[in-house]
């Protein structure tokens, strides 16, 4: 046993037997050589008092595992020396019979080497990065910059240690930057800010995006801050230029839109004014006709004047319909033909009370120069039917007039049919008995179409013409 205790006395590693209450009962002299405390000092206090505060939690956990029966292998923590420095110790331990047999080895040198290697690695990487790179201690003091920083700021490492970087910042950005950095290193939250840094070579301030993240040890404590400053000046200028351009563009677009809207409104009101004048003039013509009709003693002449008045009104109605269409250039025939029928019915309400007029039209939109002949054709045929078809009627059968305007292939057809006495005696293809039917033929020709008259359960006239008028055709 005495032989073995010699190993204990002379061992380079730290050996100790600890009890479950947290004291070392027995330790070897290596402890004093390593840490500087006497054996009595070390055994007189709980061992936890010597452990670095940041390592205590993990050390206690390892102790619990040990006394629960687990072996501890290569556990590392820091012990405080008598000179207040710390040394890294690596532990192997086992618990036997309520006591822990612990062996510790001083690995401080390895840690320093590892830290130095890490620092070299960081610095090598930092030099390779296109940004300014810096590190800071947990207390917020900057302790390292890469070469790019010195090249940009023209400062020396001595000048920019700690808080020495302040003169590099634009005056307006300094206080926000200090506040933001203080908040970050005190709270441990990531640091992120955009500031202007003065470039030594030309004295210009360029925008930089500065960011830093904390580096933590196994216990979660911050050991370092790793930061970068990225030059985003070109980007910011480009963004600002883009924003400016966009704004100018938007202003120009809205100005032009307003101009166009105004000009459009002007044109619309001008066009409405034109229609208004046309209708007013047509009213004047209509008034002239009715004044003349009242002066005329001859009944036929009077009726002719009123027929002309009807034609004038069928044209005037087209202008009224144009006025109400979304497109001031085209007439909705469906809308027009119903208004026309209503107008004719009102003017003939007296003489032919019984006739029922039924109008159907496809949704056809015609330009004014096509719509005018169409309107006149319908007006002629319907008034013709009202005047002649039921003259000999005995009043028993319901009197009906049917109007259909259809789009068939490339053609448009207008059909006006009644169940009266037919065209016999009304139509004389060679002669020119009725002005109305002559007008229908002429207008059909004007539309590059044809008019067909037939008697089939009454009079039936069909006008067919091409929907699109070709220039130059006969």
């Amino acid at each position, binding site marked *: 046993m005495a032989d073995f205790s010699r190993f204990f006395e002379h061992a380079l590693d730290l050996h100790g037997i600890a009890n479950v209450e947290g004291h070392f009962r027995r330790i070897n002299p290596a402890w004093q050589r390593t840490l500087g405390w006497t054996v009595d000092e070390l055994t007189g206090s709980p061992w936890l008092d010597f452990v670095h505060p940041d390592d205590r939690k993990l050390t206690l956990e390892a102790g619990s595992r040990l006394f629960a029966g687990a072996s501890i292998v290569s556990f590392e923590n820091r012990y405080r020396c008598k000179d207040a420095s710390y040394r890294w110790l690596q532990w192997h331990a086992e618990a036997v019979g309520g006591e822990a047999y612990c062996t510790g080895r001083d690995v401080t040198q390895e840690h320093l080497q590892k830290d130095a290697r890490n620092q070299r690695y960081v610095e090598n990487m930092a030099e390779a990065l296109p940004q300014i790179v810096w590190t800071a201690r947990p207390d917020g003091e900057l302790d390292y910059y890469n070469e790019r920083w010195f090249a940009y700021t023209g400062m020396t490492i001595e000048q920019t240690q700690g808080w020495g970087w302040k003169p590099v910042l634009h005056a307006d950005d300094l206080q926000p930057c200090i506040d933001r950095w203080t908040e970050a290193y005190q709270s441990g939250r990531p640091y992120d800010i955009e500031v202007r840094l003065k470039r030594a070579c030309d004295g210009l301030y360029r925008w930089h995006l500065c960011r830093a993240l904390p580096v933590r040890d196994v216990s979660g404590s911050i050991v370092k801050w790793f930061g970068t400053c990225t030059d985003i000046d070109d980007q910011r200028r480009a963004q600002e230029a883009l924003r400016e351009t966009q704004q100018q563009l938007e202003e120009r677009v809205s100005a032009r839109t307003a101009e166009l809207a105004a000009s459009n409104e002007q044109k619309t009101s001008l066009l409405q004014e034109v229609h208004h004048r046309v209708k007013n003039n047509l*009213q*004047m013509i209509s*008034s*002239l006709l009715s*004044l003349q009709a009242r002066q005329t003693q001859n009944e036929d002449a009077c009726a002719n004047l009123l027929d002309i008045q009807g034609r004038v009104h069928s044209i*005037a109605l087209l202008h009224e319909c144009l006025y*109400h269409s979304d497109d001031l250039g085209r007439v909705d025939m469906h809308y027009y033909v119903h208004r026309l029928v209503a107008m004719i019915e009102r003017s003939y309400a007296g003489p032919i009370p019984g006739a029922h007029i039924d109008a159907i039209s496809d949704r056809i939109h015609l330009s004014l120069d096509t719509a005018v002949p169409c309107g006149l054709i319908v007006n002629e045929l319907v008034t013709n039917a009202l005047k002649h078809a039921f003259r000999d009627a005995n009043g028993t059968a319901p009197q009906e007039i049917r109007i259909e305007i259809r789009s068939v292939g490339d053609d448009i057809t207008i059909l006006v049919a009644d169940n009266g006495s037919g065209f016999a005696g009304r139509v004389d293809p060679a002669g020119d008995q009725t002005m109305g039917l002559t007008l229908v033929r002429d207008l059909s020709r004007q539309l590059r179409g044809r008019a067909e008259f037939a008697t089939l359960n009454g009079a039936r006239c069909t006008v067919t013409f091409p929907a699109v008028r070709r220039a130059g055709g006969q």
Partner: protein
Amino acid sequence: MSAACILVVEDEAIIARDIQATLLRLGYVVPPPVACCEDALRAVIAHRPDLVLMDIRIQGEVDGIETAARIRDAHGTPVVYLTSYSDATTIATAKASGASGYLLKPFRDHDLRSAIELALHNRARATPS
């Protein structure tokens, strides 16, 4: 009951004469048509018409809608508008001014007759005395 008196305010002489002739034939009393606001206000005082037929565009600075409002405010005479304006804005303005009727140009005798009869009928109902 004597025949109703109708004043025509219309600056187109031919149209005014036609309306006058039509109304006379229908049995109404029709004073000579007038063409501007001032004449219209004078004629209303002179003839005390039962109804005014008012073109919206008349001679002078004041238009038909404003003239109608002045007549209604001063004498309570109902007004039927007579115009070739059929755009939504004009019709809305005319309606808001409390028109008794609205007749679109070009109109024919029977359109005129029914608009007047309707307006006179409504007036009779509104004032039972």
